[in-house]
């Protein structure tokens, strides 16, 4: 290649390289224009958000049955407490909320209390008909003199305000279920189950 041609080729390429400035300018403009949230350079958070219940359901979604959350032979006024452990098994901090609904004819006679961070304890005996469940400590997130929803499509929020969970952390949800003292006689022998759906969102999500 002659020196002249080489020089022209080099000059041409140098001119073309100016396109980088256009690119940089465009990038800067568009970033300013479209986005108000600043993000750390080079970090694309492909983190993992993973909510677990009672140590189970690692990975996205999932449902489980808590076989120890069971009580039979309830007479009106008796109650039962059980703690559900909500865990963050992912790599990013999350905030969680929870909703619940019942299924079965006993549902309308049940009254619920949810205490986040509470410890569950039970006293009394079924023989005496004086069982009482208690949650100690924690913050009451739900307590109502009415039944919760019996409709899975429109459940009742039992942890309505987001509660934080750092990565690797867990919190107990102490749940008390009580058979209303004025439950009607038609509920004799009735049964029900309750379903709790816990939703975790990435911290800082709107």
């Amino acid at each position, binding site marked *: 290649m002659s020196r002249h041609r080489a020089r022209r080729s080099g000059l041409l390429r140098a001119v073309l390289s100016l396109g980088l400035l256009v690119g940089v300018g465009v990038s800067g403009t568009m970033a300013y224009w479209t986005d108000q949230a600043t993000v750390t350079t080079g970090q694309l958070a492909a983190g993992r958000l993973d909510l677990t219940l009672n140590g189970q359901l690692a990975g996205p979604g999932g449902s489980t049955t808590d076989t120890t959350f069971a009580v039979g032979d309830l007479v009106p006024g008796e109650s039962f407490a059980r703690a559900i452990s909500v865990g963050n098994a992912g790599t990013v901090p999350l905030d969680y909320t929870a909703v619940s609904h019942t299924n079965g004819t006993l549902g309308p006679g049940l009254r619920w209390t949810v205490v986040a961070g509470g410890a569950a304890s039970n006293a009394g005996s079924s023989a005496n*008909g004086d069982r009482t469940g208690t949650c100690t400590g924690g913050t009451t997130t739900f307590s109502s003199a009415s039944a919760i929803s019996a409709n899975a499509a429109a459940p009742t929020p039992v942890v309505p305000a987001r509660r934080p969970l750092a990565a690797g952390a867990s919190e107990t949800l102490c749940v008390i279920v009580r058979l209303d003292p004025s439950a009607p006689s038609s509920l004799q*022998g009735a049964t029900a189950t309750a379903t709790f759906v816990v939703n975790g969102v990435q911290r800082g999500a709107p």
Partner: protein
Amino acid sequence: MSRLRVVVLNAGALLGVLCVLVAAALWVTGSRPLVVQSDSMAPEIHAGDLLLARSIPAADLEVGDVVSVVDGSGVRVTHRIIEVSESGAERIVRLRGDANAVADPDAYTLSRAERVTWVLPGVGSAAAFVDSTPGRVTAIGIVAGCWLAVVLPRRRAPLHARPRRRRGIAPVLVGAALLLPAVLPGARAWAIFDDTATVATAPLAAHRVVAQGQPQCRNEGGLFGVGEYVRLTWPHVDVRYEYRWEARHTATGEVVRSGVVQPAGGRPGELELRSSVLDLGLGATTYDVVVHARLRAAPSWEAAGTTTQVRTSAVLLGLGVRCA
């Protein structure tokens, strides 16, 4: 030195052409590039991907479109439309990430929307780099390097050097086309990432009140038929129970007396019926004594009743009650 010069010039030309081509393509098509931050739209879109979105009127939106919107707090969300409703020329949409189990909490009212038309996998990281300060420094450095390479005098080639291959601009342009996705300007998109877990209880069951066994009836007391009474006895098998009884005139069904029996623990249920308790009747009158077990804590919770018949009889010196 000349090898470095060639590398710098080729890189600069290549990248520069790239940037111009991409910027032109974006400008012509009206697309906006978005860098994806999270996996909430998996499996189609992952963190690190680059999305190209076009601004369209909200009236053209359909359920299933993936749109990028900015919410009230200024954060950009890119999710799929699951619901659209009209509000004049505007549209109210509800969004949900494909990998999320629940929809986004807020609905968005839009007159225009950025609809995602292309997904470029993995390109986002390069775009984010270019958009960053080190990326800009690198870009400016390359441009400066190219001009230095042109301005600085070249070393004279030695007479007996190897013949140099001809280099032209063509391979650079081909390289630019091949590396098209490598460097792109971009803005950032944020997609909410969530996980849902469900736990159900085992069955919760209420008690059913069990009827007591049929009472045993015994004739007690009295002397020559005077002052006779009956005692009904039944097993008290549940400390939670008490027993409601009523005595009905068999012929009419009219309730003449009633009461509640609360046995002490370990004791059987007992009911004594004397003529002073029952109404006076003429001659032998039959009564049905019905006993129901029920919960002390909730008296409306009763079991079916047992019926025992007793009879009053007029005897010489007063009425007595005897088992029927």
